[in-house]
């Protein structure tokens, strides 16, 4: 059979496509839920209308986004059984539990309270309406945690034993699966990156409007919230990335050696800035390196030995038998760099933005503006940026909304492809995980169907987002400002149109 169309290859492509696509929506859902809840909290506490307008605006974008996140998530739940039935049989005893927990605890939470929030504007007193959004936010975070614990088990299986008789892995310590350091670090890293993503989304859209001097009041607040979120999220992403990296050096040395294109172990080991290599011969042809930095990233000092690809490959051959235990090196190497590069670019743009738009008391009198004016971008202590540079900052800030999405995608591609040829590290290889009974034609059919459908929906979604982004925050109505006092709505409103209807 042609290797390119081997069932394993097709199934991997399909999983890659559906998962990366799903994960475009997930981080935005996680962060926008919390940010929208935060804005609504500000409205409930202060009664300042700009917060309600911001809540409605970001809430709408959140809803357009979560719709896609939810429906693509259904595929995630079932494709293990469809394309990876041998995987499901082998690991279901361990891997199934966090998935079931996710559905029973998190999905119900999210989906029920999102319905209450969407339709509840004229049915719930405002504090209860607000509580619903926080419930959604808690649901999204719980959901992320369970699925990341499941994924962490594939990266670093713990709390299980192999039952030879049944030919499968069986759970022995669920608590360990949920709390092992891989799971904690992955959750920390993924959630911070989610907030970096949502913050950048806010910054980008706020910049779009502020550059055009539109919707200034709401967009200034949003810009500020977005920038702070980018900076905090970005910093935590970097810190957690470092923590996760060190854990990976312990648990999956091959992945990290591949990430650095470090063919042979070195002490001290350098960090690679650029490399171009020959996979067959196992060395780099071109390499630009920073001495000692990799040792620091892996072990916290500048001199430690870090094993290389060839060393780990040999060690795994001795342990697991003959075979090639190297992942796709260029993908791991460049995936790692795109992840860090795009993520940290966003953080930098956020840091610069936070300084440029700093609070009034840090500015000289002549650069302070009113609440309804676009702020000056003030780089030097007393001098604002000129019109060209100002325009460029807004442009770059707008573009930054896409950067974390790219970084997230590459992060997953890196961590999943860097684990190959294993699907569960050291326990089960990917080639042994596919569905033996599913034909090439079936996998190909579903891959074409999902890819086409997802492409169409992507166009629809982006256009819809663009429409509502351009429209800006809505004007408030009487009903918005007078939420009901009783659950189920006030009787005086019995014949009024619903505040929201499909």
């Amino acid at each position, binding site marked *: 059979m042609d290797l390119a169309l081997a069932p394993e290859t097709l199934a991997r492509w399909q999983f890659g496509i559906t998962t990366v696509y799903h994960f475009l929506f997930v981080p935005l859902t996680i962060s926008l839920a919390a940010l929208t809840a935060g804005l609504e909290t500000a409205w409930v506490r202060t009664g300042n209308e700009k917060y309600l307008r911001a809540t409605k605006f970001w809430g709408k974008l959140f809803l357009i986004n979560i719709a896609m996140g939810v429906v*693509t998530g259904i595929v995630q739940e079932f494709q293990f059984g469809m394309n990876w039935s041998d995987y499901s049989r082998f690991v279901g005893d361990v891997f199934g539990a966090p998935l079931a927990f996710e559905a029973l605890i998190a999905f119900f939470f999210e989906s029920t309270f999102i319905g209450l929030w969407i339709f509840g504007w004229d049915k719930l007193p405002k504090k209860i309406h607000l509580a619903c959004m926080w419930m959604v936010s808690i649901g999204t975070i719980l959901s992320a945690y369970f699925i990341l614990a499941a994924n962490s088990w594939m990266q670093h299986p713990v709390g299980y034993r192999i039952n030879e008789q049944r030919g499968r892995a069986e759970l022995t310590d669920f608590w360990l699966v949920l709390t092992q350091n891989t799971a904690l670090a992955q959750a920390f890293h993924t959630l911070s990156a989610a907030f970096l993503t949502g913050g950048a989304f806010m910054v980008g859209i706020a910049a779009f409007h502020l550059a055009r001097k539109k919707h200034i009041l709401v967009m200034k607040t949003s810009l500020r919230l977005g920038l702070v979120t980018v900076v905090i999220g970005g910093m935590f992403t970097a810190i957690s990335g470092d923590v996760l990296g060190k854990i990976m050096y312990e648990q999956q040395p091959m992945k990290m050696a591949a990430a650095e294109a470090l063919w042979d172990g070195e002490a001290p080991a350098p960090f690679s800035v650029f490399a171009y290599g020959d996979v067959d011969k196992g060395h780099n042809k071109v390499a630009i390196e920073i001495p000692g930095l990799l040792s620091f990233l892996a072990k916290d000092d500048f001199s430690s030995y870090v094993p290389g690809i060839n060393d780990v490959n040999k060690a795994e051959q001795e342990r697991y038998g003959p075979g090639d235990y190297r992942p796709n090196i260029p993908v791991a190497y460049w995936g790692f760099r795109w992840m860090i590069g795009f993520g940290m670019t966003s953080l930098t743009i956020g840091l610069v933005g936070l300084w440029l738009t700093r609070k009034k008391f840090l500015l000289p009198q002549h650069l302070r503006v009113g609440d309804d004016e676009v702020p000056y971008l003030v780089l030097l202590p007393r001098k604002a940026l000129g019109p060209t540079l100002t325009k460029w900052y807004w442009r770059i800030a707008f573009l930054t909304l896409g950067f974390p999405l790219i970084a997230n995608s590459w992060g997953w591609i890196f961590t999943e492809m860097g684990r190959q040829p294993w699907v569960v590290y050291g326990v089960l290889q990917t080639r042994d995980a596919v569905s033996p009974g599913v034909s090439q034609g079936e996998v190909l059919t579903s891959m074409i169907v999902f890819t086409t459908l997802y492409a169409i929906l992507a166009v629809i979604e982006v256009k819809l987002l663009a429409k509502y982004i351009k429209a800006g925050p809505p004007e408030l109505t009487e009903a918005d400002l007078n939420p009901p006092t009783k659950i189920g709505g006030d009787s005086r409103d019995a014949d009024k149109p619903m505040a929201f209807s499909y």
Partner: protein
Amino acid sequence: MELHDVWFVLIAVLWIGYFFLEGFDFGIGVLTRLLARDRAEKRVLINTIGPVWDGNEVWLLSAGGATFAAFPDWYATLFSGFYLPLLLILVCLIVRGVAFEYRAKRPEESWQRNWESAIFWSSLIPAFLWGVAFGNIVRGVKIDRDMEYVGNLWDLLNPYAILGGLVTLTLFTFHGAVFAALKTLGDIRERARQLALRLGVVTAVLALVFLGWTQADKGDSTSLAAMIVAVVALVAAIGANQAGREGWAFALSGITIVAAVAMLFLTLFPNVMPSSLNDEWSLTVTSASSSPYTLKIMTWCAVIATPVVVIYQAWTYWVFRKRIGTQHIAEAVH
């Protein structure tokens, strides 16, 4: 009763919850074409399930996730074996979710009309296919000694399974019509009741044949009892609908679904996926289940989480208890 038996019951409960709840919102989707006369009425129907359909659908995700955890082999055989029908269901559920959320987000006629078609077809197709799937599970399919499905797509489209599909389709549509009568105001409410009568009669005939066939093939005294409950509840639902007792009619059509699905699970036990090739190769509650440790943890989770879910979902229905009429649908596009 051992833990894997408990889990057989819990999986049945999750599927019953799914068919009870998503049953009427599939039905509402189908009725947007059968019952609604114009766009305003379509929107009335869609908005009766607006706040709740998403939560209803999670019962499916829970059934799937719980099957994965409690019966990994069942999950693996079912979803890899019923590959193409499941693919079609997934596509429908994707399109359907997006259709509800996006339909009113643009004013263009073609945009709204396309999403309305999407809602109709993506409700009708899964409502039919779930019956086909369960018909095949109960009837038994070609499963080899390695628990792999070795039949093809056409094996799944046998008369018994297709009849099962027609039963779920008509039963869900009936359930939806009864729900519409309960949740709407004005002219559409009256017509929902009239349509429910006709749908109820068709459903009753199809269900009687399908359940009778099931009983004759696989039944015992407990399944017979469940079948009688299902049929009596269905007839009583039609009667309550005629008498204008909409709440009772809905409860009874719900009981019909509960009893009918329970009957299928009763005929299945202790198998979870019988093999039509060799009885020895059937997946059973013991051969397909997880380890006792996993089942124990899952039991704790389900026993605590499920009642809580039922409470807050029930609260949602209470919050949105008011009937909806065309006067409640705003003209403006959101």
